[in-house]
């Protein structure tokens, strides 16, 4: 009996050490675009210091880059991988520009770029909703 | 008296209520023609580790020789010095005369006193 349980537990460990699914990666990508958006919005309202906002945007940029590479290698089923790659790359560029605009203290430019980033986020969300379900 | 329940692992206090450690072991004398009787309480050294496994006792003995007061044997207090056995066991001894806090004094003198604000160990 205890041998069966040990084997069962080993199976759990073996199958559990799996990488995230493309659907989970899409959700993470959305999350990081959303994070950049929230951090940007907070900065516009003078809620957060420059250093924190820049660091959070940089983190979002890096995380999004990793996720975009992985999604390129194994795109989610039912997704237009070219369009997805394009919008993720565009989002990354916008996040990098937001960082630069903080340094330049260009509030108006920042607000415009942030609106564009939110539009990208809505686009990625629509792509994610059209995908095949995860579970 | 239930030795395991009321004596083993109990806290030891000297006649001035200073902490001396715990009852890590008991030494029993078994005579050919007499009833077995407890002769000593044993504190520290390899005694508690021996209760886990001899390998731990050997490791403890090796570490004790490399560092600290380098005491070879555990501290033994004659059973006759036991005054009361209750929630703690009170002994009719002075802790500094027994060697039970050799480690405490060694660490205090060699490490704690050397750090500013550490205070000083009382002599005697």
């Amino acid at each position, binding site marked *: 009996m205890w041998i069966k349980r040990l084997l069962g*537990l080993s199976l*759990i*460990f073996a199958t*559990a*050490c799996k990488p995230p699914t493309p659907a989970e990666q899409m*959700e*993470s990508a*959305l*999350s990081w*675009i*959303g*994070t950049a*958006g*929230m*951090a940007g*919005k*907070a900065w516009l*309202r*003078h*809620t*957060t*210091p420059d*250093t*924190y906002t*820049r*660091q*959070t945007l940089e*983190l979002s940029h890096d995380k999004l880059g990793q996720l975009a590479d992985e999604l390129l290698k194994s795109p989610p089923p039912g997704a237009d991988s070219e369009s997805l790659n394009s919008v993720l790359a565009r989002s990354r560029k916008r996040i990098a520009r937001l960082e630069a605009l903080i340094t330049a203290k260009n509030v108006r430019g920042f607000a415009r770029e942030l609106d564009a980033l939110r539009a990208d*986020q809505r686009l990625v*969300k629509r792509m994610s909703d059209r995908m095949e379900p995860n*579970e | 008296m239930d030795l*395991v329940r009321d004596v*083993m*692992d*109990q*806290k*030891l206090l000297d006649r001035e209520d*200073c*902490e*001396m*450690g*715990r009852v890590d072991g008991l030494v029993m004398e078994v005579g050919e023609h007499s009833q077995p009787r407890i002769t000593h309480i044993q504190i520290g050294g390899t005694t*508690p580790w021996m*209760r*886990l496994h001899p390998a731990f006792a050997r490791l403890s003995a090796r570490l004790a020789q490399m560092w600290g007061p380098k005491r070879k044997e555990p501290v033994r207090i004659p059973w006759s010095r036991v005054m009361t056995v209750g*929630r703690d066991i009170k002994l009719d001894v002075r802790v500094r005369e027994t060697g039970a806090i050799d*480690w*405490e*004094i060694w*660490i*205090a003198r060699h*490490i*704690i*006193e050397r*750090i500013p*604000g*550490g*205070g*000083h*160990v009382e002599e005697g």
Partner: protein
Amino acid sequence: MKKVLAITLGIVTSVGGFLEIGSVTTAVQAGAAFGYQLLWAILLGTACLVFLVEMSGRFSAVSRHTIVDATRERFGFPFFAIVMVGVVLVFFMVLVAELGGIGLSLQILTGIGFPWWAVPVSFVVWFLMWKGTFGLIENGASILGLVTISFVVAAVKLNPDWGAAAHGLLPGMPGTDKAKYGFLAVSILGASISPHLMYFYSSGAIEDEWDKSYIPVNRFIATLGMTFGGVLSMAALVAAALTFQPNGVEVDTFEQSALLMTTALPKWGFFLFAASMLFTCLGAALETSLAIAYFFAQGFGWSWSEDLTPSKNARFCFVYTIIILLAAVPLLMGIDPIKVTLMSMALTAATLPLAVAPFLFLMNDPIYLGEHRNGWISNTVVAITILISFVLALIAIPLQILGG
């Protein structure tokens, strides 16, 4: 007056113990990922903790022994040694996480990375223990920790659907991501029912020289203090649900958590979050360091008290000095404190039976407690908590891998 002031023991145990990087991280992650659905885990953890903390205090007040004393005396050195291994491992990881939490709070405020804060933060924690008294740590941490009331203010300002929140107080299963849900539930319970809280509280009752006359006060403190911590934790979850979910943000990092109150409290939210984490992690770091030192000193029968000069309880002070030094090392190496936090919560859950199971015996021991032994309600709660702890111990590690 002393009894009235004694409520600070409960509040610091709550604020520094209940509310710290583990409980805040898990609550915020849970709110962001599942909305109100995991409020029941905080409620359950809080309820168990109220009873366990009350028992710890009652035990020490009546017997004038701590839980650790009694664990060694009643179960012997071999069992104590097993508990010691589990305790040292888990408490050490918790200490790393708390020091890291202080470092991360300073990082988001200054922009200087948390590894640079490892040494100064560890030094400050050590210095407060070296020079400070138990009263200073107790009162200081609890007063500073009151800044966490901002979590409640933020949650209320976001106008939650109280009906939906009330639904979250009942256990349920989500539609998707069951493994992650399970992992977060286990982590929340591990963050709530922390053994170091019980050991600290029990030792604190001795430090504060409680006796049988403190039994009613103890009940009040345990209930008020732990409930206060539970409410703060729930407020963090609710605020996270209303702040992060609408933006599609899953919270994985401290930087993301820092945005928790920026919607509800635009002017001060960010700084209040940073201050809250700074002070609660500081309180928790002090509490955890003390809990480790108390554990060794009480288990081996050394002299111990935070109120004594270090040379008068040399081994006790040596233990916390070494442990704080060692805890700085993973942070200096840049190991993510949030990852350490989540692992330590899962490990706490996995080792919970070792800490909780002895309670059933100790709290019914007439030699220690006389007429103040557990009644059937307390015994039932302990039994249920032991059952929960065994279930958590079995599923914690697999869920950590599957859903963590």
